[in-house]
């Protein structure tokens, strides 16, 4: 598969320990990769609706994020396309908007990317603190490698370019 535009998005809050996993993974991905300019890195923070454009405006998306439920075994998880929940739910504030809801809206708009992959790790510590826990830090390189392998496959198959 060859995609013209790929967005790699890191989600999470840097102020709450492992909540910041997605952004930390994105930064590591950015520093250790040399992909063409068509691969964009986006520090999505805890943004909700503002990220819609980054999903709807490209061919393929990778998202790094911390995952729940917390009782998941602590390892790197990779979910693809239909494995990702997409729904619009009842909520108390517009700040409660998760990535699933963005996918729901993109689907209603008919603007889902051709491929979307979530790479996530269940957090260990979610306290007010800047920096990841040692347990989650250990998993970061693997998460980044997963993303690099996938993006490599997306941007470098010359047979698919026409």
């Amino acid at each position, binding site marked *: 598969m060859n995609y013209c535009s790929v967005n790699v998005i890191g*989600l*999470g*809050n*840097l*102020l*709450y320990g492992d*909540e910041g996993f*997605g952004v930390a993974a994105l930064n590591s991905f950015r520093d250790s990769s040399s992909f063409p300019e068509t691969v964009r890195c*986006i*520090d*999505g*923070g*805890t*943004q*909700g*609706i*503002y*990220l*819609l*454009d980054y999903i*709807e405006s490209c061919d393929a998306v990778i*998202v790094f*994020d*911390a*995952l*729940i*439920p*917390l009782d*998941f075994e602590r390892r790197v*998880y990779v*979910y693809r396309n239909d494995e990702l*929940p*997409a*729904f*619009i*739910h*009842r*909520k*108390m*504030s*517009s*700040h*409660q*908007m*998760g*990535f*699933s809801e963005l996918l*729901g*809206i993109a*689907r*209603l*708009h*008919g603007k889902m990317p051709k491929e979307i992959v*979530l790479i*996530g790790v269940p*957090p260990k510590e*979610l306290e*007010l603190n*800047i920096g990841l826990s040692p347990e989650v830090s250990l998993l970061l390189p693997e998460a980044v490698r997963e993303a690099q392998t996938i993006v490599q496959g997306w941007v470098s198959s010359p047979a698919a370019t026409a």
Partner: protein
Amino acid sequence: MARKIVVDPIPRIEGHLRIEAKLNESNVIEDAYSSGTMWRGIEVILKGRDPRDAWAFTERICGVCTTVHALASVRCVEDALGIDIPVNARIIRNLMNATQVTQDHLVHFYHLHALDWVDVVSALKADPKQASAIAQSISSWPKSSVGYFKDLQQRLVGFVESGQLGIFSNGYWGHPAYKLPPEVNLIAVAHYLEALDFQKEIVKIHTIFGGKNPHPNYLVGGMACAIDPNSDTAINIERLSMIKKIIDDTTTFIDQVYIPDLIAIAGYYKGWLHGGGLGNYLSYGDFPETSLADFKTLLWPRGAILNKDLANVIDVDPRDASQVTEEVSHSWYTYSGGDGKGLHPWKGETNPSYTGPKPPFEHLDTDKKYSWLKTPRWKNNPMEVGPLARVLVAYAKGDPMIKETVGLVLSKLEVGPEALFSTLGRTAARGIECKQTAGFMRHYYDQLIANIKTGDYRTFNSDRWDPSSWPEECKGFGYTEAPRGSLGHWIQIKDKKIKEYQIVVPSTWNASPRDANGNSGAYESALKGTPMINPEQPLEILRTVHSFDPCLACASHLFDMNGKEITSVTIV
């Protein structure tokens, strides 16, 4: 026996707003308690850091409110260090702020609030022909043909029939509190999708001036963007014309979609005038035409109103130790001088001390401490902040644009000004304000062009960038009117480092718990007296809480692989 409805987010670790409402025999809310279930604690993280970096940390408090915290932060540091920013920087900040408010209000109305009034499932039954006729009768917006509504309806039916569609899951569809005919529901759903698509354009203005978005760059002393009409990399003619196009499109969307929808929807609900609440309103003001310290030039005026008395707008000074205070008699903190004694933020303390039940719990002991939010008060009064407060202060002060627009909306709805003191009034005020800030965007664009034409390209004042130019010790106050209300940052700097930093955010004003005198906060007060049709489906509570546009869940963002239900309702 009185029953209690508890509306709480799931999962709990997300940390959010919890409402406990007591009902009487006839299902009318007798009393309500609002609790913030997560500690944010940014004040602690900032201690000892370089004041010039504070904005970048405060920008991370919240995903939706990034720019407003950055703005309040640079303003408080500049106030402390006595820095005047260049004219271009003032204009650009105002333009970015107007952009933020406009986009945020639009998103709030369609994305969060509309579904409190619009029944998506009812739209499936609409007659597209009639929907088209109604749409064309209320607006000249071109996307209104029979075919357009037919296509959309088929798409919706497809989604619902595909079954996998938890999309729009958990809505209270079919709830008897929904009053719109199917055709108006269909129009609103169409505009829901259009608005979410369109809002992506507005915020591109932040990318142009802030270098990137999300998390645009701010700078103590000005703005980090360079202006040069002839350069490829700076703010140039091409980028300025892009901005102009965005402003034109935004104005059209608000005039032709948002405002007509607001009036059409409100027309069916004008019999539901609950949710007024305190009747006390506060605005710090914003949009300085000169220096920020000269608050008489603010386009959004400063002032307070007590007991709905529009004849009397009271002067406000957030620097005055006796005016803005925070106490913690019902909050999970301790104060060294006593929890019930209000402290001005320059004397503020942040000592967390959780004494609530261990989660998961059934209910909070609301006689004791029950929230992570402190209790801000203005001259000991609980205050509402946000669009309704600002519109009322401007209205009471005789602002011509606000007087005219409020008058127009009231006359179209055939209601008097007293209707403003309600949930619907809050929702209408947000729309009125959105139209106003779209006008501000154009105003500041014109100002920027005029100033650039004089040959002034300056965006940064570096006079006090070097810490050696700073006093040993100083303090500052920075404010802005964020989309959801008055936001203040109070800083103390000592030995070139942050000694203390206190933030009082709009949702702390609105969602605050009781104070030491037993006075309710704005949400608590607004919910009282509201009749519930079906307590198992507390649509009426969501309506009123949503009308304030709460900001509480933003600190955290986890991808939930299982959960579909994010807000739980229990009756105990």
